[in-house]
């Protein structure tokens, strides 16, 4: 048995965990790639990451400084918007705090420790961080990545496979799929703002796996097929959807309301598994647009299933849930 509200918190804890992990990874990849270039070029490079993550509006609103590391700082340590690593980690921690009585103690403690570390970097202040040449934010990225790995590990190894786990895992898989589709979009087109295939693979933690299958300089098309359709890669959208179906099956006995989400997940999985992707990707914008909105609807169905059975309308009116931002929200 699980409270509808707790199910919802775990769903969002999973989503934010994946989001924190992915943003931190992207920043780290991008920073390493441009580290030896000149500062202005580094700044330009991080600007396109802001775009790829769908944070342009937040970027403008935050009035980010002109220093070479200000953009990275915006993505890592700026908690004025929900798309930063520090904000996502805070959201993981707040959601797990709501359910801290039912999750393994270690899971809560890891989230709390990571939050404390990220906050201490944040409290250094923008100007001071800038003076360190981005050092503080770079260290924060390392901390965040290690912390996220540790959280995933505790989650996988010590959480009982109950309804709570099913919701948290579903949250992670959906967020991962949504972000993969978003990032793929940033490889479309031509010009200096477009990421090449290798960069996209690195963003999605798939570079090593892809090198064996696709060689060293894969084209966007091959990368897209790899990231959408791979059967055995835990980063591919097809793989994620297969797991989402399993988790929703786990929940079906308890919550009849997951049926809608279950149908949509199955349909989307079948689309990727049996669809003629070469043909579909002939019009890549349209296909990615379709996948993006279908995933957002699926996420919204899962969220709705936590509340439908109990008639719980919106219990979170008193609780500010950060992050209506990137890649779909309830």
């Amino acid at each position, binding site marked *: *048995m*699980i*409270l*509808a*509200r*707790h*199910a919802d918190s775990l769903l969002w804890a999973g989503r934010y965990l994946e989001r924190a992990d992915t943003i931190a990874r992207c920043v780290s990849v991008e920073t390493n790639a441009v580290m030896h270039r000149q500062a202005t070029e580094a700044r330009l490079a991080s600007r396109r990451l802001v775009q790829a993550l769908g944070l342009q509006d937040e970027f403008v609103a935050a009035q980010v400084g002109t220093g070479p590391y200000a953009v990275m700082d915006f993505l890592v340590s700026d908690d004025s918007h929900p798309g930063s690593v520090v904000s996502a980690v805070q959201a993981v921690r*707040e959601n797990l*705090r*709501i359910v*801290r*009585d*039912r999750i393994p*103690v270690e899971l*809560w*403690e890891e989230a*709390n*420790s990571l939050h*404390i570390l990220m906050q201490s970097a944040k409290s250094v202040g923008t100007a001071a961080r800038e003076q360190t040449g981005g050092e503080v934010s770079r260290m924060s990225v390392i901390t965040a990545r290690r912390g996220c790995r540790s959280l995933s590990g505790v989650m996988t190894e010590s959480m009982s496979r109950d*309804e709570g786990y099913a919701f948290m895992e579903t949250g992670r898989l959906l967020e991962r799929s949504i972000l993969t589709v978003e990032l793929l979009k940033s490889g479309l087109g031509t010009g200096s703002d477009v990421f090449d295939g290798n960069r996209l693979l690195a963003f999605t933690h798939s570079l090593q796996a892809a090198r064996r299958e696709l060689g060293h300089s894969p084209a966007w098309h091959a990368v897209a097929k790899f990231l959408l359709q791979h059967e055995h890669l835990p980063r591919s959208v097809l793989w994620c959807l297969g797991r989402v179906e399993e988790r929703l099956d786990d*929940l079906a006995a*308890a*919550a009849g*309301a997951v049926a809608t989400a279950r149908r949509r997940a199955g349909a989307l999985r079948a689309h990727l598994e049996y669809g003629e992707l070469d043909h579909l990707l002939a019009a890549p914008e349209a296909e990615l647009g379709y996948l993006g909105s279908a995933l957002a609807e699926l996420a919204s169905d899962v969220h709705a*299933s*936590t509340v439908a*059975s*109990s*008639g*719980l309308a919106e*219990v979170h009116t*008193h*609780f500010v849930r950060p992050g209506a931002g990137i890649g779909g929200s309830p």
Partner: protein
Amino acid sequence: MAELRKPDAEFPAYDEAFDRDGSVRPVYAAIVKRFSNFDTAELRRREGIIEEEFRRQGITFTVYGDSQGTERTWPMDLFPRLIAAAEWRDIERGLAQRVTALNRFLADIYTGEGAAMADGVVPEWLVRSSAGFERNAFGVSVPHDAHCVIAGIDLVRDAEGQYRVLEDNLRNPSGISYVIENRAAMTKAFPLVWEDHTVEPVSQYGRMLRTALESVAPTGSGDKPLIVILTPGIYNSAYFEHAFLAREMGVELVEGPDLVVDEHVVYLRTIEGLVPVDVIYRRIDDSFLDPVSFRPDSTLGVPGLLGAMRAGTVTVCNSVGNGVADDKAVHPYVTDLIRYYLGEEPILPNVETYVMWEPDQRDAAFERLDELVVKPVGESGGYGIVIGRDATDEELANARAEIERDPRNWVVQEVVELSTLASLSDDVLEPRHIDLRPFVITGERTQVFPGGLTRVAMRKGSLIVNSSQGGGSKDTWVLADGAASGTGQSNGPAAQGPPR
């Protein structure tokens, strides 16, 4: 080595560790010897371990209106408080006796004949005028008359070493989680101090409370009643404790909107739909419990909850209206209530308290107000208290005027020179004032949890121990029989540390 300061010879308070001529009391011999071997840096290092442990685990409490943000790490002093087995047995008997009588009193008021009032033990008007008196509670009965399942009784020790009851907390006493976490932290920071002592464990609280809550479930709940803890949410000062208790008991932690009442039955909103609830351990105040019967603006409570209680489909713990029995103006009558209901002499005396509507008591109190303590009956957490000897003439005059305006609203107590115990302050271990809040659990029977929360005033000479006002806490050890060797020698391989 860190200096372990003895209390000044002329200091009036009772010191727990040292007697009047400065020798170590036997029960503290081993621990004093241990601590004398640590230098200040070592103590600070271990203090760091404890603080880091609390911070990492998010063991915090909230100070309202604090600009530092809402959560503050729980403060714990390193030097433990020890209570000898025989001494504890008396306290235990005294507490069980007191809480039993208080539960009888509550049942008498709300579901009985009002016998104590009819027989003149407590004035009827005093009961009726109490802010904690609740008309809505009439006719709401609780199995075993356990109106107060969880009580926290604040004890202080006077200059002669006599334990006295300062206050009863029969509504929502908090602090038990810190008792258990203090022990865990102490075990991590001082793994070897246990060699010299056998200490009563504290890890059984979850089981003890769950058993009590199960025993008050309405008849017809089945053998596994559904129990929930009702919290106001993550911004409440005691949220950590609410989550802790849910985890320790293995029950759901719910907020008001998670519950719904239909046809006088309380249901839990789960992903499977609505599931009926048998017992609610609520950690929100009476007035927020049910917007239908109490404050209509409450969003924390559950509409219709009181109707369900009245229908007997759910038990709410602690029950509604308990505030009448821990009203500070009713406190002076509790010893008579013990005699009245139980026909026994009270084992634990009260702190001497004067009521202000009796002209004799008031006049006597006014004459020596600068030696006494003035307390508003409706406040808690140490707020609104005037300590006569520290007050200016103007403050005392104000207090007199306030009392004359509304005598029902004030009590005046003798100053108790709270006992002291060595606590780490700057670079020395120095005596600081302490009190003790033991917890008493009532289900089928009344049981006292070993030890309790020792609170310590970290400022020298201060008598205010409340954590909201800068107080700290101490791990509190109830020693098992024959455990204090008094020699500092190990008890050998049979000696046991706490189980967690």
